[in-house]
């Protein structure tokens, strides 16, 4: 069944706090083969002007995709995850994510379309610190194949 266009603009409650750890950043950097010390050595990060190690730019997905799954679980959306592929991804970094950040994700449905029998769902996840400092906006377009 095609997604209802009325869903556009729907917002979801803020997520629980995600605390960014140094070890998680180092693990993610290693997994993408990134060896810049700015991701694992706090002194190197401080020398570059950051308070602590910073995350690679696509690390934001670790926090944001889980938040976007809130939408897939919405009974009025209820897309079959086994049919879902990632169509598009955009990050806007207001500043780098860094160790010690306590991030809250707020998710909104930005767009709903049906194209050639597929449902296209665009979610926007705004990542901010607990204190309200904007850190990153992550926009994901998910394609549910053959559901429209």
């Amino acid at each position, binding site marked *: 069944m095609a997604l209802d266009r009325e869903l556009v603009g729907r917002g979801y409650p803020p997520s629980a706090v995600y605390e960014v750890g140094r070890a*998680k950043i180092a*693990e*993610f950097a*290693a*997994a*993408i*083969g*990134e060896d*810049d010390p*700015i*991701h694992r050595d706090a002194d190197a990060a401080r020398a*570059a002007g*950051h308070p602590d190690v*910073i995350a*690679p*730019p*696509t690390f934001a*997905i*670790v926090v944001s*995709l*889980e938040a976007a799954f809130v939408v897939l679980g919405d009974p009025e959306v209820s897309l079959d995850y*086994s049919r879902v*592929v*990632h*169509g*598009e*991804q*955009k*990050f*806007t*970094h207001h*500043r*780098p994510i860094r160790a010690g950040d306590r991030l809250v994700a707020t998710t909104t449905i930005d767009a709903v379309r049906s194209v050639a029998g597929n449902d296209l769902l665009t979610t926007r996840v705004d990542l901010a610190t607990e204190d309200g400092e904007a850190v990153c906006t992550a926009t994901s377009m998910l394609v549910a194949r053959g559901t429209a």
Partner: protein
Amino acid sequence: MSRPVDVEVGSELPERTFTVTRADLVRYAGASGDFNPIHWNQRVATSVGLPDVIAHGMFTMALAGRAVTDWTGDPGALVEYHVRFGRPVVVPDDDAGAEVTVRGKVGALLEDGRARVDLTVTTGGEKVLSLARAIVRLA
């Protein structure tokens, strides 16, 4: 790493080639939390119509991002990054894996010392990202 100098529209980034093996995908699954079995289990991948296990789109995005941040010399200088996933990177169950090649050139110089980098990401000569662009701070 030092920052690029004399950047102008059309300036090219050093071409990069990354090898992607099944082990890389397992490691990325663990680090990212994306355990979709199409990225590590051939039986599941082929059952949903894929030719074989495919790389996470986000892993390809991360590799292409490295080509950009290695060029700028500062992973913190990537302020915007947008990709559209076109074709999957198929990763065979062997030691050679798949090769992903990233080329990039400066598409525009923007205000505040920023530049737009347009990327071309291919595997086996075919484009895997139908759009890939990054905005970086150069100064």
